[in-house]
């Protein structure tokens, strides 16, 4: 970050993940768990106008004025990664209008597995998957799954209905993340919400203490290449090993 007063301002916490995995709901859960003790603001990035902002305002978890919408011109991944201008302006506005804020939650527009936030926009980011998307999604990897600060496996209460083995999905995700945290979450499961709350407070403390360094999950995480000739049926391949995080991967940009 350019500012040397970085730990003085609010923690900017991104929430990314594919469409329908429960990003808005996760933000509502964080607001319910922490609005009493922290001064919060929310920015949503929508593909169509301000639908997510309206959902959150109607959820009644925060004063409506503290929830702002950024419209992304059909490019939600651009707005959080390569041209973050509108989101930076919105974050600065919110932090000025409600100073001092403790945390600004920034929700990405529901997009795809490769979209993650620029570390110039958020200090930390949560990537959200859900059990209904299928138990194998975590195994497929991607920058958000592999290297977001926290991976949430959401809607665990639905697992019996969609035939997903939650412990297995969490184990797959953990294996893909080199020990970074994975949280199996349901908004109806109080201990999991408490764990989410504790994680946010821990990151906030690290941000304030100056010990948290924003990380770019990168354009592509280590991933599995299927190979029938290989004795294990394929091999795990990490671009980070050879080329560091700046390496770009043709597949990562293929959607745009």
């Amino acid at each position, binding site marked *: 970050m350019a500012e040397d007063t970085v730990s003085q301002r609010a923690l900017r916490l991104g929430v990314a993940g594919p469409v329908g995995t429960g990003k808005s709901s996760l933000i509502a859960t964080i607001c319910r768990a922490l609005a009493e003790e922290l001064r919060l603001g929310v920015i949503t990035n929508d593909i169509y106008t301000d639908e997510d902002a309206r959902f959150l305002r109607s959820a009644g978890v925060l004063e409506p004025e503290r929830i702002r919408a950024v*419209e992304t011109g059909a490019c939600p991944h651009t707005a959080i990664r390569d*041209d973050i*201008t509108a989101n930076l302006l919105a974050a600065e506005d919110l932090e000025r209008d409600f100073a001092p804020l403790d945390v600004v939650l920034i929700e990405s527009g529901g997009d795809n597995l490769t979209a993650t936030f620029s570390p110039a926009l958020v200090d930390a980011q949560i990537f959200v998957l859900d059990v209904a998307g299928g138990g194998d999604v975590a195994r497929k990897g991607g920058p958000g799954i592999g290297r977001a600060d926290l991976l949430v496996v959401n809607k665990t209460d639905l697992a019996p209905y969609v035939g997903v083995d939650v412990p297995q999905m969490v184990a797959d995700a953990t294996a893909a993340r080199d020990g970074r945290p994975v949280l199996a979450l349901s908004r109806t499961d109080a201990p999991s919400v408490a764990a989410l709350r504790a994680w946010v407070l821990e990151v906030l403390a690290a941000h304030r203490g100056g010990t948290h360094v924003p990380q770019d999950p990168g354009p592509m995480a280590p991933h599995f290449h299927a190979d029938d000739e290989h004795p294990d049926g394929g091999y795990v391949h990490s671009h980070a090993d050879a080329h560091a995080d700046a390496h770009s991967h043709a597949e990562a940009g293929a959607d745009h």
Partner: protein
Amino acid sequence: MDGGTLPAAGTVALLLADARLPSGGHAHSSGLEPALQGGMPAAQAAGFLLARARTTGLVDAATAVAARAAVLEGGPLGDVERAWAARTPSAAMRDASRELGRGLLRLAKRLWPESAALAALVTPPRPVVLGAIAAATGLPAEELVRLSVYDDLASAVAALLKLEPRDPADGALLVLAACASIEARVPEIAAVRSPHQIPALSAPQAEAWAEQHAIAPRRLFRG
């Protein structure tokens, strides 16, 4: 900029006209989505661009030129902004332009921190920021006119390709044709020196579409 070598004004113009410029412009359609939502057939996009170029396009370009002159000659930019607002009757269009202006200003303050005119701006419309940048970088008035019109029309066509996809080469042809259509007026617009010389060229149908679009529940672009 630091160092002893400054970029050529022509290079600055290329940078500002580049769709990859990080200033938030990708969320805007220069009135194209409002027109389509308002019922204009996509087949009339060429006509829309010609009309946009000779109305909003020239008002903005002349505003940019007047802003450049005000900065170079020490006149107040507030008068330029008021003259632009008086010639941009749609509040939705003014809001969209100020949003573009803010994004551009954020970038410009980083690129040209020595510009007192840029530093003093708060919520300027896009053409006022372009004019202040032109003054800071030595961009000539005629190039500023072309830049202002081109950038506006290219945004419309980029949005058109998302909303009503076609061969993108057709889009490039549309942009060039609409830019060429105002070429004969470039010297006259570039000669603007004071705010009262900015032409009042309104586009009532496009303004009405912009107002409807601003309150539409489903849209992809800001304006």
